[in-house]
């Protein structure tokens, strides 16, 4: 692992948005970077989120500075990776319950934060968004967008690898060698045993697990962990991200992303960073809260629910009851060469990486500015805009219907074979995340068995049956939380297909950590 020709060796802990942002920033500054991720890229909060690349308008009133940062970052990300971003646009709508004076403050805040904002005629908005309430009395358009998390993280990881960095997936950081009060090495455990990674510095970017990693570093980082749960509706109920025009709070956004739409979120302080539990009461609360925005919401099909944990560093002497700042924090753990970066958001992950990079560079006395905002992510300079319809249009153009592996998402089987052959990926969850297999209404019922057939054909030693168990166990877990009405029929049919046709038996061990959502 020694690469003495490069700059100082930095290990980044955590392969979420933050860790990926940090690792890329560092490698562009000439550091020798190893990114260590316990599961797959983005298996933590970075995939259990609301999907938005925020314009910042949400914080236009509550935190105008942060709002402006979001807008700047959102522009940069879209330039770097148009293939992972969808320019859906966003709306802020005032419903009868929303404060009458917020609209003007909102408009002023957006202008101050340099967020392009336009007031729209509520009648036009209601005509173009038939699902939303007929009680809209003010409406504003802002450039909110959505991001495909795995697509972007994999682009970043590919760039890191291309530049000589290492990305270790399914490796867990277990301890640090801090002999002499300085970072010496990081101990990790992976599928083929433990490894010692020599290091000159460590960046703890473990999101909600940052507190645990800090403890391994002998540090105490006070985090507030807030769990947010989200409902996944079976199709896009709205064309733009719909926000309530009021101070940001829980239960106020509906986001169209992928082929689905997400409503959220709940908000409750938790102790366990690994919790992914969505309580039945939360589902009911979400439905109740969505009703004023989307009347008749209970008649809409909900595919599943998930929860993510937002890690925020509690500033010293922060008055209790006041909502914590959104902006991230970088903590320099003295002269040890260890840093923790936490908070912030998906939208600002690049900027967070830059900030952490500045700290690490100055620690080593290196005076090289960040290049992550201007260096293209892909050697060919970036792809073209994508939305899920692109998949369907592709199949229709090439008339390859008979080769479709995942029907709900219109995924061609050749795409899957290519990924298995070129990248050696065979685990169904890895393929699922990269290609969106099994994300639609049937939650993997029909593509699951096709996938098993295809992978088993390409690699006869691959334990396809076991993988299928893990696949369905995970899909079922998220889907049973919202199994009523037609979706309940789906789950019964799907479970019957897995159990009766494919002989799948589920037990507690069926699904490995970090694979759900």
């Amino acid at each position: 692992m020694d690469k003495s020709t490069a700059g100082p060796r930095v290990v980044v802990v955590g392969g979420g948005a933050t860790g990926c942002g940090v690792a890329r920033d560092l490698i562009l500054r000439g550091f020798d970077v190893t990114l260590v991720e316990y599961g797959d890229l983005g298996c933590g909060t970075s995939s259990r989120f609301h999907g938005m690349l925020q314009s910042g308008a949400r914080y236009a009133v509550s935190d105008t500075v942060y709002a402006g940062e979001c807008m700047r970052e959102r522009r940069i990300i879209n330039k770097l990776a148009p293939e992972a971003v969808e320019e859906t646009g966003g709306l802020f709508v005032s419903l009868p319950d929303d404060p009458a004076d917020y609209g003007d403050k909102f408009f002023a805040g957006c202008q101050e934060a340099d967020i392009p904002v336009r007031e729209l005629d509520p009648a036009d908005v209601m005509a173009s968004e038939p699902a939303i309430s007929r009680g809209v009395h003010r409406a504003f358009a802002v450039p909110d967008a959505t991001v495909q998390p795995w697509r972007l993280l994999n682009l970043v990881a590919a760039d890191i690898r291309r530049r000589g960095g290492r990305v270790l997936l399914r490796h867990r950081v277990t301890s640090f060698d801090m002999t002499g009060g300085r970072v010496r090495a990081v101990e990790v455990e992976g599928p083929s045993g433990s490894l010692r990674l020599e290091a000159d510095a460590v960046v703890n970017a473990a999101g909600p697990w940052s507190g645990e990693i800090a403890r391994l570093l002998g540090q105490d980082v006070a985090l507030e962990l807030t769990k947010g749960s989200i409902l996944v509706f079976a199709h896009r109920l709205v064309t733009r991200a719909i926000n309530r025009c009021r101070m940001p709070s829980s239960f106020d956004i509906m986001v169209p992303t992928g082929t689905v739409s997400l409503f959220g979120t709940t908000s409750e302080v938790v102790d366990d960073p690994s919790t992914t539990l969505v309580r039945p009461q939360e589902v009911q609360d979400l439905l109740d809260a969505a009703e004023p925005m989307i009347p008749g919401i209970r008649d809409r099909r909900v595919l599943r629910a998930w929860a993510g944990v937002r890690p925020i560093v509690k500033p010293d002497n922060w008055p209790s009851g006041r909502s914590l700042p959104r902006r991230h924090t970088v903590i320099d753990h003295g002269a040890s060469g260890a840093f923790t970066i936490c908070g912030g958001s998906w939208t600002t992950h690049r900027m967070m990486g830059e900030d952490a990079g500045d700290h690490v560079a100055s620690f080593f006395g290196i005076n090289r500015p960040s290049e992550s905002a201007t260096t293209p992510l892909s050697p060919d300079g970036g792809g073209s805009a994508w939305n899920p319809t692109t998949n369907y249009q592709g199949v229709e153009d090439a008339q390859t219907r008979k080769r479709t592996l995942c029907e709900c998402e219109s995924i061609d089987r050749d795409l899957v074979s290519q990924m298995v052959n070129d990248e050696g990926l065979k685990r169904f969850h890895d393929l699922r995340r990269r290609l969106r297999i099994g994300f639609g209404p049937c939650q993997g019922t029909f593509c699951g068995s096709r996938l098993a057939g295809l992978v088993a054909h390409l690699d006869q030693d691959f334990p396809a049956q076991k993988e299928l168990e893990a696949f369905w166990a995970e899909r079922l877990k998220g889907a049973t939380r919202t199994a009523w009405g037609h979706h309940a029929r789906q789950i019964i049919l799907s479970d019957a297909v897995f159990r009766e046709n494919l002989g799948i038996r589920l037990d507690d061990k069926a699904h490995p950590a970090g694979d759900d959502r």
Partner: protein
Amino acid sequence: MTTTHLDRDSHEGRGFSVPLMTPAMVRQSMDNCTKCNVCQVHCPVAGVTDAFAGPKYAGPQAERFRIIDAVDETAPMLCSGCGICTSVCPNDVAITDIITLAKADQVDRAGGIGLGQRLLNRPELIGRLGSLAPWLANGVLANSLFRQIAVAVTGVSRDAPLPRFAGQRFRRWLKHLSQREGPQITYFSGCAVDHYDPDVGIAAVSVLNSLGYKVTVPPDACCSLPMLSSGDFETARPRARKMIELLTPSAGAGQTIVGTSTSCTLTLKSKYAAYLGFDDRQASEVAHAVSDICGYLLEHHADTFAKASARVPKRVLYHGPCQLRGHHIGQPALELLRLVPGITIELSQASCCGVAGTYGYDQEKRPIAVDVGRSLIEQIADSRPDLVICDSETCRWNIEQASGVPCLHPIQVLAQAMELTSGKVFQD
């Protein structure tokens, strides 16, 4: 899901009424799909050609993409609109209607429909032209050179079962008809009766008269179904509205509007709402007043047929047309025919004869239609019935041409059973 209902107080005794679905409700039904594939297996078109993606694919599945962004697709285009998928779906997905809405989007994007389909979409116009000089028109259509030219210009299949123009025979007969006073009923004759199949109309009015009704027949106009099912909504819209105006006096007076064409009555009952979004009070009133004639007779006059029937010693094969399923009334004609003494009935084993409205007339789709209808034609060839009975006109013309066995509307047999000579169309 909310449904548009009319308050039913003043509409008792009108037979079955289906709740009206608007395009938004049609689209929303995509969420009900569990991907079970039942529709895929039953779709007669998908059963004979891989060129068609099938109902699940072209319906609820593709709809999730269409609502995100406009697409250029061929997936919906080969659907015949037969409605079988919708009727077999265990989860109430309005599959046929989703596909038809998608077809209309594609037609819009392409800037309209082709000449052939435009012609096929105007049966009343062609009918009126042909009626000016039926002998000349029939002669021309029988001429193979003319047909070849027509195929090249219009895309209408040269082998299509074109009916013979009958002139204004039904309307002329009606003009000389004297009716007794009695309960009022409206008979919607449709293009087929007005221009090609007058005997069906004569039989229908005669049966209704003999049951004591005074029959009103609205002026000759087309319900616009061919336009709707080929996706030409914009041309259909004002015509459909006019049709509703035309039927409003009857519906408003509380009359039932019966029809002999299963597809026209289905259009009046539910497709104006599903495709054009007509769910206002006037449109709903008309929709709820419409009934398939056999459905109406079975509900209100089964006794008469059970008692008063003359023997019809015929071996018949009954084919319930695909569009009948959309009425959700079972096969009332079959039940009525079973009351007729002397008749031996064999049931068609096919779900569709292939022609499905004007689908089988299109040059490109004709081979598919022939394949879809093959099993029915073979069944007829095997069992050699005296007659085939079917409620839908294009099906009858198709079956008659393909099998060589005469094909009648059930009302013609019922008229015979009631010994109503004016509607008599076959000899013992």
